[in-house]
């Protein structure tokens, strides 16, 4: 065989290889799995800026779950919003997914894609509250607007422009929201650049909107406690109402990023029937003691209210950052039980410190699920508030970081 033949043969191989049809048919199963629990996992890429985030249904608590049948969703976005059997997935906060809100509906214990709502680019859409089957509000942190949409039709029906409420800029940075008595309470972060509000602006601001007219009624401010930045946008349940219909607002105090200023993280209250802050209730988290924990608290990373004034949360503890360490890989979050009425915190025994990817807290019947990614283990743990015991080992061990959990009920 001469050399020309060799050359032509090799070139042919290249072209034939190029022309081959790839076999990429997914093997079996529908995307998203099957079951009554939705779990989110997250796996960063080596570049650190991007990664994979996966969501799937599983049937009850399962010892091990891989991501083979999971739906890939935007990396680093807010946790999905769940309402009944519906799940709304936000675009990635980093902007590397399509600019749309995707609705999945769980039927026959499986997800089906039920529609999409096109969103403005770089909207910062992170939070939804649903008023009725036909009306919901979508907070868009990066553009200072709330989009009103019909969840059944996934159609935009209006918007509320809050840009005039911005302090020093044209964006009040919409956070988490809640509806009470026909009024929409909107947490405002008032950031002016980076992730921080003005160094001297230590108010907590909340916009109150009349859901009948979809008009801004007023912005209320708590100006005395130096507790600042109402709600964490990607933590859906950080503004909640208790059995008395009092609203509690977790405020993140510039994440501790403004040293030498008076910004503090904490919890404030708007009592039932009121539309102003309750001046008798100010619970400062920054610097607060945690029973069973040597170091003091920074801010509330995530929280869920469980009833009787008790909330379960992860607290970011600055004292656990190693020198020079920052970022999600820092293992510095402590699981706690918060007694809102008595303004105390207690460490959940049996759960190690976790990194920034493992801070999910969710209700599971009358128990609590903590996602936890410690130096030794990774998974979802089951905590029983009645016995105050946490499972010895994870009740679900996923592949990747335990980023989110939602129980649809039997």
């Amino acid at each position: 065989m001469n050399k020309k033949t060799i050359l032509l043969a090799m070139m042919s191989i290249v072209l034939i290889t190029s022309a081959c049809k790839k076999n990429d048919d997914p093997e079996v199963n529908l995307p998203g799995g099957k079951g009554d629990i939705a779990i989110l996992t997250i796996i960063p890429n080596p570049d650190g800026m991007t990664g994979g985030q996966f969501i799937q249904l599983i049937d009850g608590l399962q010892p091990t779950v891989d991501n083979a049948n999971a739906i890939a969703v935007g990396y680093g976005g807010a946790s999905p919003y769940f309402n009944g059997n519906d799940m709304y997935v936000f675009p990635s906060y980093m902007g590397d997914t399509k600019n749309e809100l995707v609705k999945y509906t769980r039927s026959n214990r499986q997800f089906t894609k039920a529609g999409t709502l096109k969103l403005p680019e770089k909207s910062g859409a992170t939070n939804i509250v649903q008023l009725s089957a036909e009306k919901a509000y979508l907070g868009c942190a990066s553009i200072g607007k709330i989009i009103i949409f019909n969840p059944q039709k996934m159609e935009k029906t209006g918007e509320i422009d809050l840009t005039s409420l911005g302090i020093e800029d044209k964006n009040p940075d919409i956070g988490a929201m809640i509806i009470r008595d026909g009024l929409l309470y909107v947490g405002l972060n008032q950031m002016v650049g980076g992730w921080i509000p003005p160094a001297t602006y230590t108010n907590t601001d909340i916009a109150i909107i009349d859901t009948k007219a979809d008009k801004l009624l007023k912005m209320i401010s708590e100006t005395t406690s130096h507790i600042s930045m109402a709600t964490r946008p990607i933590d859906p349940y950080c503004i909640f109402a208790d059995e008395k219909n009092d609203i509690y607002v977790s405020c993140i105090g510039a994440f501790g990023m403004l040293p030498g200023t008076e910004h503090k993280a904490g919890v404030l209250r708007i009592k039932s029937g009121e539309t102003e802050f309750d001046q008798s209730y100010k619970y400062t988290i920054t610097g607060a003691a945690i029973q069973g924990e040597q170091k003091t608290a920074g801010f509330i990373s995530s929280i869920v209210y469980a009833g009787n004034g008790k909330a379960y949360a992860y607290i970011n503890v600055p004292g656990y950052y190693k020198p020079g360490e920052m970022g999600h890989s820092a293992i510095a979050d402590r699981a706690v039980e918060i007694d809102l009425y008595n303004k105390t915190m207690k460490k959940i025994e049996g759960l190690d410190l976790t990194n920034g990817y493992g801070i999910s807290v969710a209700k599971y019947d009358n128990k609590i699920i903590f996602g936890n990614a410690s130096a030794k283990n990774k998974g979802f743990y089951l905590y029983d508030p009645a016995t105050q015991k946490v499972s010895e080992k994870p009740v679900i061990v996923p592949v990747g970081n335990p980023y989110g959990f939602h129980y649809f009920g039997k």
Partner: protein
Amino acid sequence: MKHKTLFIILILLCLSPMLWAQSNKGKYSVVVIDDNNEETLPGATLYIESLKKAAITDRNGEAFFSNLPEGTFVVKISYVGYKSINKNITIIYGKSPKVVIRLTREANSLQEVVITGKTEARLLREQAMPVSVISMQQLQGTVSNIQDVLAKTVGVTIRSSGGVGAASRISVRGLEGKRIGFFIDGSPMNDNSDFIDINDIPVEMINRIEIYKGVVPAKFGGSAVGGAVNIVIREYPPKYLDANYTIESFNTHKASLALKRNIAEKGYEFGAGGFYTYSDNNYTMQSPFDDDLKIKRDHDQFKKYVGAVSFKARKWWFDLVEFELPFIRTEKQIQGIEYNIRQAHTTSNALVFANKMEKENFLTEGLDFENNISYAYTQFGLIDTAAYRVGWDGSIYPAISAKGGEIGMWASNSDNKKHILLHKLNLNYVINANHSLNFNSVFNWAYGIPQNPLKELVIGYKTDFNSHMKSWISGLSYDFRTSNDKLLNSLSAKYYFYAMNTTLASIVSPTPEKINMKKHDFGVSNALRYRITSDLMLKTALGYDVRLPSETELLGDGFIIAPAGNLEPERNTSINLGFLYDLTGKHRSNLQIEVNAFAMYLQNMIRFTGGFLQSQYQNFGEMRTIGIEAEVKADIASWLYGYTNATYQDLRDTRKFEQNTTVPNPTKGSRMPNIPYFMANAGLEFHKENLFGGKDQNSRLFADAAFVEEYLYDFEQSNFQERRIPRTISVNLGAEHSFMNGKITVSAKINNLTNTRMLSEFNRPLPGRNFGLRLRYVIK
């Protein structure tokens, strides 16, 4: 003090062999000149077939052979555009004759172009290091920038993010970014990426591109672990004019001019040149984020101005003393893809003063000296002060900060100035025909003066402080070559030193902190080439290389990117085994077949780690690579040249545990994401003289196809993962026609003939089908 001592020891190590250096038996020097005008001819090739020895004339038109046996031999002398001649030379021990050889121009030069180009490249390929060498004589007219050249090269991929002037990353065997050294004429350029991008250099100004894979020779002073790309700028003849103008799609204009004039009796050469590139880059792209949105890019204008003057003296005590004064200015708009950007842009300026001195037989016989010193003053600014953002549909949105801005987290009006001093010394000592030593030292000092008052207003405190940075990278290599040239072994050791003094602001501390850091490390490599037959050689290389953390990685930006003073250097262990079968110049097919297998193990990978609020560069794990690459090139007929190559590279995550934990790593064994694993290229070139009649004309037609298999953007986890970079096959066509024996050349090309939707990453749309037309005028 320790470093000074080490430096002295290295110098002594380098110089001590002189004491026992042997006399150069059988030495023969040749000066090649133009028969017509007596100008010297740098780059002419000399080849003694019976001894399998070759040499290339240097900048003075001089070449020499050493350690030749006594006797009479035939040496063939070739040069582009000149008639090759054979000359008998007689070697008598103890005598070192120097002869002048005159070449005459010939009208019909194409074949010589091809042969000469390949012969030159062949000499480099026959080094022990794994290297691909691309002679630009073959490629001019068929490519519009270096990216086009590299994309055809086996084992290399280019990750461009857009059109003309867009940032691009070179990936060699899967390693990319700062891990790959970028050199121009052997000087490291990695820290100057804001000022000169690899694609900026006009192809007509390039002599050749050398791509070192895995093991980087010690003579390159930079710290690179994955390989290096060295662009060798053309050495123009003493009297020369080369003018080029290119017009391409998307309102792209490129013009370059090189002038050279000499005073032969004084040995002076005066040069001036420069280039200008302008592009609107206004191609239409399908939004990766909205299926219904097609965007005509309208904020991607790119302008680059480069001008330089030079003076060379060839008859002073040094063989060459050169002074150069280049100036570079770049203006670049920033095109939005995820969202619209209307105003943000960057400007950069660089003024460089460079001096080079060369002398052969410096102080003693056999010692070649090359000394480079340069000073650069650079300025870079990002201007992002828009009062509001504008959506694709014209909607108005708030700026990203209280002081405006469209990108990132704050407004910016930065003015970062830097003074850079670079000293490079290379001493090459040929002890005898069997042994040689090379010492290389690169010292870099930089003083940065950053300013960004708008950022400080937004954040509320100062984040950017003046910084001093020093680095010294030195290498010593020892080459052993057997007398029959069957075996060549090259052993290198490198020492790295890096120091920085600066001030860091931190979000957790109101008081800025003084930083004084020093780091040092060692690397070693060995490469061996064994000639199994005169046409077939075996090449092996084993390397343990180090990449020092960059300034950005160490210092962050004081706010969103936290400093990481405890970063360790990256370390890469690599092994290469290859075979080269080469008939260039020996058979009319000029067949070359090269197959390489390689493996690498990268530790202490430095990667960006996203965070709640702050991110940071961290040493993050390790990965391994196993791969194979093959390439075949040949003249299929006297009028048809073809090449094909393919690369398979399997990069896998090898971390046992997740960072800072004892938790098993869920992606251990998974393919590293966002890195292609199978690529192939093929091309044909038809060439014929006087195709359309007439005389002194030459025509070339060419077609290239590139294939990249689909790969995932993230670690593979789900059967339903959508973030994939699709399989692409792109085809480029071109034609070139030269008149008047190459004095005038017209070339045209079509890129992406099939208008394939090309994406870099998984969401950076690249241009569709586009066209270019180039006119070149040369006076020699």
